């Protein structure tokens, strides 16, 4: 279980996150929903250990990981722009996490093969990143994030950069992959439909704080304030 408790983050003299608390139960997916600039990405980066935390704590199964360096946390993060490694082919990208974990080349090859299969890109292993379409990049990024089987996965606007029809198809696929693999996940998005499609638990974020959380129905039936009502309306 992931626990975030009273998290404050300052960046460049600005107070980006204020007293953010949330939990994600094992095997569950929570969506953080909010307008751009509300601090959603920073929340993921703080949980991943990519930005320093001013106060508060991040725990995994009750153990404090706030000061654990990023590469030792064992969390996965899929970046908004995918951040694929331009100098490696598809297989090199997908197998990267396993190589870092010290897997043998044979193990890496096996896992890369099956990871590419889940995302429907079998046989794409030796493609260059530059030759991939937007949708293919998204799927490679997803495979790269999930291949090392991280205990916890974060997805930053996983479908944000894609056009509408592709988005709808990949939304279904992504949800299926997350469910089938029983992944514990935190998804960040500014799109209400995407959020509710990927998870049934939402956390609404605005100006660096979580305004309200619960299922979409709960929030819609009792919105905390006018802003929540307008934003979800």
């Amino acid at each position, binding site marked *: 279980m992931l626990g975030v408790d009273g998290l404050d983050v300052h960046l460049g003299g600005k107070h980006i996150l204020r007293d953010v608390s949330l939990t994600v139960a094992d095997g569950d997916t929570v969506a953080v929903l909010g307008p751009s600039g509300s601090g959603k990405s920073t929340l993921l980066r703080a949980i991943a250990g*990519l930005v320093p935390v001013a106060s508060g704590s991040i725990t995994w199964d009750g153990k404090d990981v706030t000061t654990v360096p*990023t*590469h030792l946390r064992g969390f996965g993060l899929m970046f908004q722009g995918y*951040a694929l*490694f331009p100098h490696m082919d598809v297989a090199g990208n997908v197998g990267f996490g396993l190589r870092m974990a010290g897997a043998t080349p044979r193990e890496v090859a096996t896992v890369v093969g099956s990871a590419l299969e889940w995302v429907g890109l079998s046989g794409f292993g030796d493609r260059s990143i530059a030759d991939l379409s937007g949708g293919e990049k998204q799927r490679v990024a997803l495979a*790269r994030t999930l291949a090392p089987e991280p205990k916890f996965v974060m997805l930053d606007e996983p479908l944000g950069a894609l056009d509408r029809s592709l988005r709808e198809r990949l939304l279904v696929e992504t949800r299926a992959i997350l469910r089938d693999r029983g992944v514990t996940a935190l998804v960040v998005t500014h799109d209400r439909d995407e959020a509710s499609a990927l998870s049934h638990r939402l956390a609404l974020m605005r100006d660096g704080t979580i305004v309200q959380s619960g299922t979409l129905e709960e929030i819609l039936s009792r919105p905390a304030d006018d802003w929540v009502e307008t934003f979800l309306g």
Partner: protein
Amino acid sequence: MRPIRWGRVLVAAVPAVFIGYFFLYPVGRILALGLSELGVGSDGVEARLFRIGWFTLWQAALSTILTLLAAAPMTWAVSQYEFRGRKLATALVTVPFVLPTVVVGSAFVALGWRDSIGAILAAHVFFNVAVVVRTVGALWSRLDPNLHDAGRVLGAGEWKVFRTVTLPLLRPAIAAAAAIVFLFTFTSFGVVLILGGFRYATLEVEIYRQAVTLFDLPLAAALAVVQLVGVTSALYAYSRYQERHTTTWTLRSEAERLRPTGRGGILVGASVLGTLLVLAIPVARLVTRSLQPGSYRALFRDDPVVGVPMASTGNSLLYATIAALIAVSIGVMASAVITGRRGRLSRWFDLTLMLPLGTSAVTIGFGFIVALDRPVDLRASFWLVPIAHALVAVPFVVRTMVPTLRSIPAETREAARVLGASPLRVWREIDLPIVSRAALVGSGFAFVVSLGEFGATSFVARPNTATLPVMIFRLLTRPGAGSFAMAMALAVILAALTAVIVLWIDRAQFGEIGAF
């Protein structure tokens, strides 16, 4: 508290110690020595410093003006018009610029120009035309042609438009080119030493004479102080100019160039062919004078004074290899620090590493023999030559690496960290493969710099391990037709070696870049 990252500390410490001990400390010793000499004020020192400083200044200013004028027709032709062979012409005009100064000096000696101010100025123009063609041409080719046309519509003639519209718009590029040419000619050493004879000496040449020939180290140090003050004020003036004149005009992307027709065609052809022909004369003369019977064969014979002249080729290649390895190692570490965490440390590093570029090679070599007697006496060490060359080459390596490293988005590295890569592993998996091509190009630059380096080497080279430029200089300053022909032959070999590496860099740089 943040734990100390020892890897990071080491990566910053190695280049810092290198620059500190081999550059800042020697320059500090020179400053101390030179300032105390100036304080003592021996008889006539000031008048002498003033005379040499004044000559250095005016020959540099005159060289700069002449270079700008000489380069104007070619710059106009290649930036404004499209014609067959335009790219080749631009490449050919760059050849003199990459030639080692000793080769340029030899080429003008081959023309029979020695001991004259005319030869010095001509060699400076020959050497620097490419700076103007490339710097000014780059801006000129991207000026919006509508500005020119608007001037014409408003009733100005072609010449008037050039004076009132085009020239003012080109001013930043002209200033940049002039600043570079001025700096090169102000610190010119090899060319002036070879062509100036005993009558003409720049600060650089006089530092060399006082230190190496006359062993007057304090006077040499005083000259070095004047030289440092001159270079620093020139750089300061230029950076102030740049700050005040930062401009953002509408530039077109470099695309449609006109094809010259009629009278324009004749003018373009005359400009390009004329410039190339004039530039080719010294090189052609160098080659023909090297082709005297037996001159190349004589290079392999043992000479009682200079040894086997051809052995200097082996020495140069060995030194260049070591210097390139040192320069790339230091440059890679330094670039990692510069592009790593943004902050005062990184900016300080960037600036300090560029200093050897602004200082002169002569000052670096002089600094070595003044200062490197502590803690161990390194002054007779084999390593002094490659270290001096590496010091001169590090700025080139850093300038090639930093833009490539900066072009890697932060997210790419973060993605690797999230996937379990330690900081060192991130560097190895992400940065290193991406920059290895840049590092290769950087090492090529370092190799070329080392091959042609003369200023610092003339101080630190040991008699039995002369480099190519040092050997050429020795043969050139020795009386006798045989020595002269051998000097010409060695200069041709050095020029050919340089050309091969420069061609290789050129292809490596533009061949596959942009693959990702």
